[in-house]
């Protein structure tokens, strides 16, 4: 059925009568249990598919840059890693809006997300490094069940090596060769077949550093 005409509420239903006594009725709340969640001692249950930090299956990521294209904040930068054939996304949580459109468009479902959402750091350069990472595989993130970011520290070295120190002390090390869609000059020996003349042109992503 379609109601074309507006059904107007009768005025007496909308109006209320002022009263002196009725506010006292709320005294009954004195005897009720408080709704407060005592956070440091209690934990809230986060919904199952809460949009938190990303995870990346390094084996299935094909480096197609769909995530980089859809990202409204341009938080995703393709990163060339030694030993990997295709670039992997590096996500900057100083940009990310946790919309997870990147997860939606990922053609191989390599990019995913977990419920973890807490990342608190001091405002110091070495600690803010934590905000910019290549996501780890899901099982490494899921190890920690307290909804915190899995990393304790990111150490960067001169030669491009990066060491992720997880919160349980284990380490994860790889070497970043460069950024951008095109393979950087350092990665040239790997795909030896095609990038013979490509090495002349500088990689646009690299000059940032």
């Amino acid at each position, binding site marked *: 059925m379609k109601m074309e005409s507006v059904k107007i509420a009768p005025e007496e239903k909308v109006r209320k009568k002022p009263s002196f006594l009725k506010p006292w009725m709320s005294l009954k709340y004195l005897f009720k249990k408080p709704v*407060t969640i005592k*956070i440091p001692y209690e934990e*809230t249950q986060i919904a199952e598919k809460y949009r938190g930090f990303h995870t990346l299956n390094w084996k299935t990521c094909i480096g197609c840059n769909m995530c980089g294209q859809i990202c409204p*904040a341009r938080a995703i930068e393709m990163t060339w890693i030694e030993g990997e054939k295709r670039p992997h996304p590096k996500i900057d949580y100083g*940009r990310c809006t946790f919309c997870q459109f990147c997860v939606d468009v990922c053609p191989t479902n390599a990019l995913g997300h977990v419920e973890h959402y*807490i*990342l*608190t750091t001091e*405002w110091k350069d070495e600690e803010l490094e934590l905000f910019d990472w290549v996501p780890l595989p899901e099982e490494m993130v899921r190890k920690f069940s307290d909804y915190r970011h899995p990393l304790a520290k990111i150490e960067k070295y001169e030669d491009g090596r990066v060491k992720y120190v997880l919160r349980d002390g284990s380490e994860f090390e790889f070497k970043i060769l460069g950024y951008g869609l095109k393979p950087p000059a350092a990665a040239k020996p790997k795909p030896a077949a095609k990038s013979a003349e490509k090495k002349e042109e500088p990689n646009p992503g690299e000059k940032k550093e």
Partner: protein
Amino acid sequence: MVDWRLYEPLINFARKRSMWIVAFCTGCGGIEMPPLMTSRYDLERFGMMPNPAPRMADLFLITGYVTPKTLKRIIITYEMQPDPKYVLAHGSCPLNGGIYWDAYNAIKHLDKYIPVDVAIAGCMPRPEAVMDGIKKIMDLIETGKADGWKRYKENYEYYKKNQDELFGEGWREKTARRWIPWLMGREKKREEE
């Protein structure tokens, strides 16, 4: 002469347990403030409360993105706060621009203009994440590491230079005077009538 350093742990403990917040919703994260302050998450357990007057407040929550127009007020408010004062930046936007990375009217790196002590990830951060940030700032106060206010004093020229670069010289006076002609001009017209 009393050596105040002896009492420092005690003073730090007192500071840590009585942080009052400037009630200034600078951005979208302000919507998570009411749940935090009210019964559900109840920040008053930590001795915190929103306070209308910056003169009595210790903690400044930058709740989300900051526009230049707000930043002017933030700087003025921040300078009005008495001295041990701490800044907590919510979410991505103060850090690196967030989704407004190309917006002409949003600050990209807040740290250039005022010192920030603690950053939280999230867009917007859940109340639990904010509470985690507050816990972190409490730890920093207790260990004496939350020294943003000292940095602001020591590097005042640096911050001032950045602020002037963004807003132009003499922005404080200009901002205050901006509205006066509109308040007075109209008034004169009315008197004539």
